[in-house]
């Protein structure tokens, strides 16, 4: 029902493309009966079940934690599972859904993230721990956890990556998602290779490629701030040796209680 009580029919305009049969991209309109609480993902499911089973998209968890369903809606990247569709309708009750930009299309709304994952691998996303592992946990203060700025919440959905105009021009760029992962590792007091990591990302494909356009911040569904992380990495890269030395010093006491607060 619409606000005045009459049934509301919405138009969902979807970019379609199956490279095996289509010569070019096209937009297709589907009419859907809006229902209270309908998300954009619900509308896609309704279309797939009732109108066109070949409509292809990724999805899984339905609550913005698995990172499958990042798409471009009315020009903005977002996770469609957590978005009420009504908030994205124009005055004609239309919404336009396209796949994430700057990436090859596999089929309809499914994109090829090969370069995205290759850059993730490039930054060595795993922790490189010190040699002396304590019997129990490494001691880490709540403040040291807070310094990670929730970077560990990144769900690798790709919304930031494909909103980044630098990525649009070169896939050599490491990208905001992988730089945020590098930030997580560099800032973690348990990581013993921050110097190596900073040296790697300070190259021409790394932190200096970022033009601070802030698209990644706008796109991030988890409210993370890759731009700020990249800024921090830039500053640390300039005093890499001192940072490395401070880390080595901190790691001498990783098995000891911390004081905080």
């Amino acid at each position, binding site marked *: 029902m619409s606000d005045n009580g009459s049934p509301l029919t919405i138009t969902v305009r979807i970019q379609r493309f199956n490279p095996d049969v289509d010569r070019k991209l096209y937009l297709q309109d589907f009419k859907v009966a809006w229902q209270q609480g309908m998300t954009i993902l619900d509308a896609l499911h309704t279309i797939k079940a009732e109108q066109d089973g*070949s409509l292809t998209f990724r999805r*899984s968890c339905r609550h913005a934690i698995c990172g499958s369903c990042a798409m471009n809606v009315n020009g903005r990247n977002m996770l469609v599972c957590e978005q009420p569709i009504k908030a994205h309708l124009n005055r004609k009750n239309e919404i336009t859904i396209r796949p994430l930009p700057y990436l090859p299309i596999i089929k309809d709304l499914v994109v090829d993230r090969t370069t995205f994952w290759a850059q993730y691998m490039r930054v060595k996303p795993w922790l490189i721990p010190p040699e002396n592992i304590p019997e129990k946990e490494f001691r880490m203060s709540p403040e040291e956890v807070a310094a990670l700025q929730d970077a560990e919440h990144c769900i690798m959905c790709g919304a930031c990556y494909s909103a980044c105009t630098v990525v649009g021009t070169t896939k050599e760029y490491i990208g905001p998602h992988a730089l945020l992962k590098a930030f997580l590792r560099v800032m973690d007091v348990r990581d013993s290779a921050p110097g190596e990591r900073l040296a790697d990302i300070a190259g021409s494909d790394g932190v200096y490629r970022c033009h601070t356009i802030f698209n990644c911040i706008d796109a991030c569904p988890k409210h993370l701030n890759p731009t700020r992380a990249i800024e921090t990495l830039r500053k640390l890269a300039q005093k890499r040796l001192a940072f490395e030395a401070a880390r080595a010093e901190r790691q001498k006491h990783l098995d000891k209680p911390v004081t905080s607060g």
Partner: protein
Amino acid sequence: MSNPSVITHDVIVVGAGLAGTWAAMIAGEQGVDVGVISKVHPLRSHSGAAQGGIAAALGNVRPVPNTGPDGPLEQVPPDAEPYDSWELHMFDTIKGSDWLGDQDAIEIMVKDAIEIVYEYEHMGCVFSRTPDGRVAQRRFGGHSTPRACYSADWTGHVLLHTIHEQALKHGVRFYSEWYALDVIVEDNVCKGIVALDILTGQVVLMRAKAVMFATGGYGRAWKITSNALANTGDGVAIAYNAGVPLMDMEFVQFHPTGVYGHGILLSEACRGEGGYLLNSKGERFMERYAPGKMELAPRDLVSRSEQTEIDEGRGVGPDKQGIWLDLRHLGREKILERLPQVREIALNFSGVDVIDELAPIQPTAHYSMGGIPATVDGQVIADAQSTPVVGLYAAGECACISVHGANRLGTNSLLDASVFGRRAGYAMAAFVKGGARLQPVESDAVARNEARITRLMSDAPAGKGESWSQIAAELKSTMTDNAGIFRDDARLRQALSDIRRLQERFQGVRIMDHSRRFNTDLLGALETEHLLTFSEVVVVSALARTESRGAHYRTDYAKRDDEHWLKHTMAHKSPDGPVLSFKDVNINWEKYPPQERKY
């Protein structure tokens, strides 16, 4: 894009959540060649959706002395007596399981718990911390101490990313977006699997010396569920079709706090941090059902209490089918620090801010206690005598080891998946290094699965042609109405006849997408077939069990019956439907004999 039609590894793992990735990482570390297939990218696995924590008796935190059950927590002073123990964790788990959990397996899990949490920490997992830098812990339902190690309310997510990174470090090969169609078991020996490369649509034979299933739970057979869309019980159904029995399938946990109308999880950490449940009269009704534990009673009990309130007319919301979750008294700061994801979910899906509003919730199908029977080393067994299916392993939610028995405690699932995934990894590495060989495949499994796909993609007979989504919807309806929180003979018989009718109708299913490339219409049909397969086993097992235990509650047999039913249900496939046999529960009669379960 083309792949060879036969792929070979020493070990093939199906599923890349915590259990599968742990196994793959360990086997890789042991120098064994491992391939992991996953229907979604590994980091999309549903382990990542777990919120509240992972249980381990670290004893880092205790209640401030002389405060009540809701009182504040503090870090245990360094010189104080240990506050928690694996023995206590073991007892809580046994009691939570309503004595159906195998006590030898539970003992291994709770002992390994401590080591595995430290191992996660050493691998870089970002845990929340105590002021002196230890892993922080919180209260959770059914646990008698604050035992849940957590990372705000993102615990599964950080564990999944951590272990995936480690697997990459050890060179594990991931086949992302590959779907298992079949497992090849001949003469009780597993020889490999048949898989679909989703991108190309090619059907591939994957041969291995050892195969492990880590395919997750089967909660997608219910209308309201916290489970991801991917959790269609594929591995469970595939194993069953290959002649492997399924154990304790009647035990399905309904979580007390799903988002009203959606089923998406609002973590038990809400109550662990002190949240209340209220009925339409504003009463904390748990006082009537579990006065000692209130909202932190185990999930089966809390969900039944909620449903009773709803059925007796004290529900909330437009159709009175909900309950209020009240977090307002926790305060903004605590909610933002400890429950940020919960707040976001309630905002997006219910339009309420839990900082100053009540959130409408309802019980939601959440966890599958039953599954593929396996030993503590992940070895799948073929019968009640524990005859091994050589080369076949299982761990995580698809497996039934059984550590959760009739009801799982919160934070024991991340633990189960991690501990037994790791053990299966070591066991498979030892099996391979001990001289296991690739076995010749006799069957025409590839052709059979090609035919299955060809039929679904073919044109329907004139005027016929069922839609899988319609059949799936009807199945979920009957499972919810007739095989849900409260069950009885008549309702279960109704469910069974509905399922059998739907199974017949499934033969007429045709899909609309006729392209081989990334065909999610085809996946939907195959998944629906799997839902129909295991749902029949759930219902037949539930019909047979004429007692109430843990999450299985029969209104016509409302008492636990240890004399007849202190045993596991095993279901084998036959042309006439599931055939049941029963397996003894491992019980230490001196230390942990069955008691009345009261909270």
